[in-house]
């Protein structure tokens, strides 16, 4: 009797949690399904997840893009911006994290405090002067305003990597020092190999944030041939392309593919990163 009641509870649990989970991902499934439906079917049987016929043509018509710029261009732009930003963000953050957690330099506490404040600074306050600054530098209509600031350390990643360096025993530094290592040597030979997991987590989030970033490209780029994918998707909502629903769903789906692929490969890093530092995904 007791066992059967427990089994019922388990069944009920899976039913509840499973249905809720299905509800959570239903919109995503719907997006993928709609990307394969013929244009006239998308909204007539909107509730359905099963297309009457697989319409791969949506992907071709979406990929063709706008006014001669195909999604090949947009994906290429995104990959350039994302890879350079990510390299810059991770390398610079690792250097700063080492300084903050291992080198007792004058003013360290002050700069660390500044960094924690930056974490909470609303973006709106800096966005206008930054725009003016970049326009005076002649950097508008280039990737520079999107990439260069990433090379100057990202507070979230600095914090995350610091948490990780703290778990590396200080004895290791001491031993390396006795062996004649300088602070630089300790960083490259002792610390760096040990903080690879934290750098991976940072790289994954840097990828997500720059891949999905919309407001910065919107500000700095207005020539379609420079658009990253996020900004190019907006073009489906403008003017004459308005009726290519299938193409819009197809390219939206495609824009999420890298996100999903990275999630399924690196799930552990992502979950650990969020759990230990409160990074938002």
């Amino acid at each position, binding site marked *: 009797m007791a066992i059967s009641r427990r089994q019922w509870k388990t069944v009920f*649990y*899976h039913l509840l*949690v499973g249905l*809720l*989970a*299905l509800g*959570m*991902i239903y*919109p*995503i499934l719907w997006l993928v399904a709609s990307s394969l439906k013929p244009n006239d079917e998308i*909204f007539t049987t*909107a*509730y359905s997840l099963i297309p009457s016929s697989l319409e791969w043509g949506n992907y071709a018509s979406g990929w063709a893009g706008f006014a001669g710029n195909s999604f090949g261009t947009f994906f290429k732009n995104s990959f350039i911006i994302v890879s350079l930003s990510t390299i810059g963000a991770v390398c610079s953050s690792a*250097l*700063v994290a080492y*300084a903050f957690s291992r*080198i*007792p*330099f*004058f003013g*360290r506490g002050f*700069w660390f405090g500044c960094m924690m404040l930056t974490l*909470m*600074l*609303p*973006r*709106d*306050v*800096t966005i*206008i*002067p930054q*725009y*003016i600054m970049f326009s005076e530098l002649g950097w508008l209509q280039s990737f520079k305003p999107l990439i260069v600031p990433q*090379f*100057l*350390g990202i507070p979230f990643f*600095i914090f995350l990597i610091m948490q990780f360096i703290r778990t590396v025993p200080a004895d290791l530094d001491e031993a390396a020092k006795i062996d004649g290592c300088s*602070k630089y040597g300790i*960083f490259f030979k002792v610390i760096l190999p040990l903080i690879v997991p934290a750098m991976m987590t940072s790289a994954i989030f840097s990828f*997500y944030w720059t891949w*999905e970033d*919309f*407001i910065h490209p*919107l500000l700095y780029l207005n020539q379609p041939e420079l658009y990253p994918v*996020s*900004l190019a*998707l907006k073009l*489906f*909502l403008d003017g004459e392309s308005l009726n290519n629903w299938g193409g*819009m769903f197809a390219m*939206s789906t495609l*824009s*999420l593919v890298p*996100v999903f692929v990275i*999630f399924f490969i690196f799930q552990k890093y992502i979950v650990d990163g*969020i*759990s230990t530092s*409160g990074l*938002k*995904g």
Partner: protein
Amino acid sequence: MKLRENDHVVGYAFAAPFILGFLLFIVYPVFSSLYYSFTNYNLLEAPSWVGFDNYTKMFTDDEKYAKSISVTLNYVLASVPLRLAFALGVAMLLNKAIAGIGLYRSAYYLPSLIGGSVAVSILWSQVFGDKGLVNSALGLIGIESSTSWIGNPGTALWTLIALSVWQFGSSMLIFLAGLKNIPKDYYEAASVDGANKVRQFFKITLPLLSPIILFNLIMQTISAFMTFTPAYIISRGEGGPLDETLLYSLYLYKRAFTFYEMGYASAMAWVALIAIGLVTLLIFQSSRYWVHYESKGDR
């Protein structure tokens, strides 16, 4: 002595990227936007000093501004508590060691992973459109609805709130990590003492999670105040219908980059900075009444 000296040089060498970025992209912009906020500046001519005009106009002569404040407050006050409640509720459901839990966790987390993207905002505008998924599903259960949830001023903001709440996954993961840190014997001891589940939740779970709730509350509130992309995409950059989705960031963007009123927009940014600072301070101040730190605990 020589060695310590060295530490300073090496320290600054390693910290240089942050210090440079901080001065260049944070300190300078924050203060120059304060200066711009007292000027009229359209990027073409030099800024001209107007004193407090921008601030006065904002609070006395700009109905859209008042509207955007009320829209933003509604958005923040609805989406943040709902999101945290869902995050905590689902985290408690998933805090079990049974087969398949990893799969559920991924399913709940996925929306928050992609939620900020343009693709999802586009998806959302179709899900809640006049012939979208929601109306279609309602039709299946016999409720005919053909008005667009996005186009209807009464429901437009709620579609944005729903989008935000849907992304409770990352907070859920943080809560889940916190729940796993609560020793099992607390609950065992409590049930021996005859405390039921509800009582255990309020006496054990909630107090022990309260530092994490505080952290989540602050970060989520700040980011909710700054929400931009979904409002921009769903309302096609307009904040409509009837300014019902004119979130603060969107209005600021329009003032700055559609009308090129950099001075006015900077003043808006500073009001936001001060307001968000006060709200954060308020949350911190209130925390002494409800956040429980285990070190001084009596358990």
